């Protein structure tokens, strides 16, 4: 094993025809146990990033290295081996399982495909289900006989069947009720500890990030606008979009409630990058420079990268007119 990050993404670009879904994304996923969140709204490219890393969509440029190996160039047997080391759990629990296959068969299919040695098929399936906090007796059921939360856990069990070192979680809880969501998050935390997992959590829900990920990267229109340690990033954002995103998260406790920064217009569709900074049409702090030059990501504080011409000001407390200085409650 090489020293360095488990997964290294540099300047990744993905296009679907004329649409530039990912426009140069770089981030590191350290070896497990480790969690990094890729946060963004629709059109940000976060789902595409997850898929590109796992070679489910073709990349148009950039590099992805897993344990030092170039992932984008893998073929055949090597690609299959990579598929064992890096796995993905999809968002759509309703459709990520073949409706005609029993749960147990769906899981053992993965074991067979990779010719994994070890315990007998049935035992292994039961073990995996139990690990995902599911009753092993469910192996005989069909997906439609399970609840959304249970289906999602089956998807996790299936991904774990190959004992991956990297897990990409694509909106793992978006389709679930809040109690089912809480159970899934607890499961992920437990698995992370038990298996020393490294995961890339893709989500639009900022609220689930602090309990799962120590690092966060915020995505907008295919570019990373800010990244750094989660707690620090959320407490002291260095980018106006992060400010707006944090302020928009609804909060139950009125004492910690944030004052809203309302961004004009809607989240732009993927690939509709304007000239200059991708965020400038909606940015409350935009100046002339922003309309002309794309701000490169730069280190504005130790471990903190931000792609904004006014990043230091934002970090230092600059807020859009009308918003109070302290946006997030102190911890």
């Amino acid at each position, binding site marked *: 094993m090489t020293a360095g990050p488990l997964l290294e993404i540099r300047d990744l670009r993905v296009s679907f025809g004329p649409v530039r879904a990912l426009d140069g994304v770089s981030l590191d996923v350290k070896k497990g146990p480790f969690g990094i969140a890729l946060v963004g709204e629709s059109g940000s490219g976060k789902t595409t990033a997850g898929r590109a890393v796992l070679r489910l969509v073709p990349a148009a440029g950039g590099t992805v290295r897993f344990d030092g190996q170039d992932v984008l160039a893998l073929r055949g047997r090597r690609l299959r081996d990579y598929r064992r080391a890096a796995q993905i759990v999809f968002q759509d629990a309703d459709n990520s399982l073949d409706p005609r296959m029993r749960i147990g068969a769906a899981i053992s299919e993965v074991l067979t495909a990779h010719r994994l040695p070890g315990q007998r098929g049935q035992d292994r399936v039961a073990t995996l289900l139990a690990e995902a906090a599911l009753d092993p007796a469910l192996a005989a059921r069909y997906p439609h006989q399970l609840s959304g939360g249970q289906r999602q856990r089956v998807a996790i069990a299936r991904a774990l069947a190959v004992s991956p070192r990297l897990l990409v979680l694509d909106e793992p809880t978006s389709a679930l009720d809040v109690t089912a969501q809480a159970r899934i998050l607890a499961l992920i935390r437990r698995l992370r500890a038990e298996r020393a997992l490294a995961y890339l959590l893709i989500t639009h829900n900022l*609220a689930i990030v602090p309990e799962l990920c120590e690092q966060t990267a915020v995505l907008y229109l295919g570019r990373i606008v800010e990244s750094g340690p989660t707690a620090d990033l959320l407490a002291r954002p260095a980018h106006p979009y992060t400010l707006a995103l944090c302020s928009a998260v609804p909060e*139950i406790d009125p004492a910690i409630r944030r004052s809203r920064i*309302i961004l004009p217009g*809607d989240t732009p569709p993927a690939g509709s990058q304007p000239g200059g900074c991708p965020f400038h049409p909606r940015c409350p702090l935009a100046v002339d420079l922003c309309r002309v030059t794309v701000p490169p990501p730069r280190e504005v504080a130790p471990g903190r990268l931000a792609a904004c011409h006014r990043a230091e000001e934002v970090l230092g407390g600059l807020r859009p007119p009308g918003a109070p200085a302290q946006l997030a409650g102190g*911890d």
Partner: protein
Amino acid sequence: MKLEIRDLEVSFAGRPVASVAELAVDAGEIVGLAGESGSGKSMTILAVLGLAGTAGATVTGSVRLDGQELIGMPEAGLRAIRGRRIAAIFQSPSLAFNPVFRVGKIVTRTLRLHGLSAAEAALRADAAMRSVLLAPDLLSRYPSQLSGGQLQRVAIALALALRAEVLLADEPTSALDVTVQAEVLELLRELRDERGMAILFVSHDLAVIAELCDRVAVMRAGQVVETGPVAQVTTAPRHDYTRELLAAVPRLEVRP
């Protein structure tokens, strides 16, 4: 009280799916109906609109709008009320708009169906679009050309144009991005404050309800388990299920 629900029971072939003993929404207030999927909250909305029958359910009980009983009212009467006095917006705004018609056509046609002349309809539609911070020329687009947030705002604009007194909102922001959700919620607050609308807001997101609503009723498996002012229910819940729901909501600030 603007909208009063009493002893409402919605059942499918004898099996009750939603029972609401008492729920009222006054003009100028937002009442939240919180619950997970299967809790019966959406069926309650359909029952208020008199649409539960089309889903095959039987409805008993009382739903009064300004004292007028809606349960059992003939379809003609209900049609006059739907949209005009009680408007509704749903989770998937694209489902509310027929994709082969331009959005403006649907809006003006609905206005005309409720008795306005063509000129009045155009004027009101225009004004309503501006109220929801959308350029009126967006009305000439097809639903597929508008984003989810825009469509949801057009749906709200329609409710405004009709001068509806009550708005039933069934998970209107669940499918929207969080920054767009913030806009729509702000809009709903304006409707309550400036137009005095009575809003019944259904959601599984307790945090949104806590921020938006004045009072809340928590539903579970078809039953209302707790009601009260939102501040009280979220800080001092009386029912175990409410406690469970609150504990499950993820917080942005990590508590030590």
